[in-house]
């Protein structure tokens, strides 16, 4: 069996980098994009990309498809999370959050599935958050963007299933690193109080589930799988 080709958008962030590393360790051929960070030292093909630039997203995915000859899995890890109360979120902040976390995923999936349809299907994994699916104190625009991901995953799974394309989301709770580091400490303490396992999630715990859904999955689709240590 030839190695799976996996493309990771937002591959240089804390989660994306670990996803790239896990996929590469499992023998996948990895393409990834980065924006503010540089190439991340993983064994893969890196390209700079601003995910809110839709033509650039499409061009970059086409380049990956040309380079590898196919794309078996797309993983969308590009995300921002600013901790703001509603009064501090102006229209620009709202638009920016939704553009990076949700709109970019839509247009990336739209493009990559054109390729996957010509193959024998594929796997799509979008990074969600418990803020999009469980009641939790969280920035409203961030929760909206992650709920958009959860909604898209269901509708995409319905539309793309006949082409043997599976679409899922992984929704982590608060993690040890990454966007979670920007959270105020009282929120983290509150989380730990209610989290059954009494600890934050590890980046590699997210990456292992993402990798399974990207590489091994054949029948799970339309699901937002929560990883929160029994919150």
């Amino acid at each position, binding site marked *: 069996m030839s190695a799976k080709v996996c493309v990771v958008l937002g591959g240089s962030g804390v989660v994306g980098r670990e996803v790239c590393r896990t996929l590469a360790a499992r023998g996948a051929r990895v393409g990834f994009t980065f924006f503010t960070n540089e190439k991340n030292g993983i064994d893969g093909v890196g390209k700079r990309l601003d995910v809110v630039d839709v033509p650039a997203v499409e061009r970059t995915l086409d380049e990956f498809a040309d380079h590898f000859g196919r794309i078996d899995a797309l993983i969308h890890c590009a995300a921002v999370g600013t901790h703001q109360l509603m009064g501090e979120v102006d229209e620009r902040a709202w638009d920016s959050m939704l553009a990076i976390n949700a709109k970019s995923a839509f247009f990336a999936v739209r493009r990559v599935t054109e390729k996957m349809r010509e193959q024998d299907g594929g796997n799509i994994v979008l990074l969600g958050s418990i803020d999009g699916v469980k009641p939790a104190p969280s920035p409203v625009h961030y929760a909206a963007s992650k709920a958009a991901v959860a909604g898209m995953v269901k509708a995409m799974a319905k539309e793309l299933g006949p082409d043997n394309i599976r679409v899922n989301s992984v929704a982590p709770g608060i993690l040890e690193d990454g966007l979670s580091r920007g959270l105020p400490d009282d929120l983290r303490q509150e989380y730990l109080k209610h989290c059954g396992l009494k600890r934050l999630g590890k980046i590699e715990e997210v990456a292992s589930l993402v990798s399974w859904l990207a590489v091994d*999955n054949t029948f799970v689709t339309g699901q937002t799988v929560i990883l929160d*240590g029994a919150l």
Partner: protein
Amino acid sequence: MLNGKVALITGGSRGLGRALARTFAENGAKVAFSYSRDVAGAKATADAIGAQSKQFQVSVLDVPATEAMIAEIERDWGAIDILVNNAGVSQAMPLALMEEEDWDRVMDINVKGTFLTSKSVLRGMIRRKRGVVLNVGSLVGVRMIEAPIHYCASKAAIKGLTEALAKEVARYGIRVICLAPGLLEDGVGRNLPDYRLADYLKHCSLGRLGGLNEVANFAAFLVSDANSYMSGETVVIDGGL
């Protein structure tokens, strides 16, 4: 993925139970399983597991026999790391024909059996402060689907039991997960009339029934150390219904 783990699977003599047993063994686990009646099926499962297997003709409702089974497994192989509460029954029948004994049988095996087996296995897991319990639920326990009401009620109960048990034993580092499949190639859905099956497939995005191995492969990941932050979750595998 499961190298060196000791797993106990209930309801191992057929269908998903056999697929779980085989897949866990392929992933390096030592697999013990229980079954209630089907001796020939149990032999086939033991053959599928290969060299190292243990089988027990033990009802999930028989606590003394369950305790003896656990004692034997742990004496010979060491601590049970993984329990899969897979034993389950259903009957296709409408409410009007459902008698109290039908209700009791389905609820007893599917729910009380899960409770009793979990309680017996968890005693050691709590002492050791490690372990994973995987409960086999069903799509009918989480979505509105036409299905026998006692079966639906039992699988919804499994979801609730999973959540409360996950909360209670998380403090010991034990994870509890519910895996909820849709209709599979083999199993309780086999008795569906053709028109119901066609309707199901029409609404299933991938347009096919789930393979037992597809569910078993996912289960092997879910109970593995790579999945150490998931607990209390009910994960659906249904091809996008």
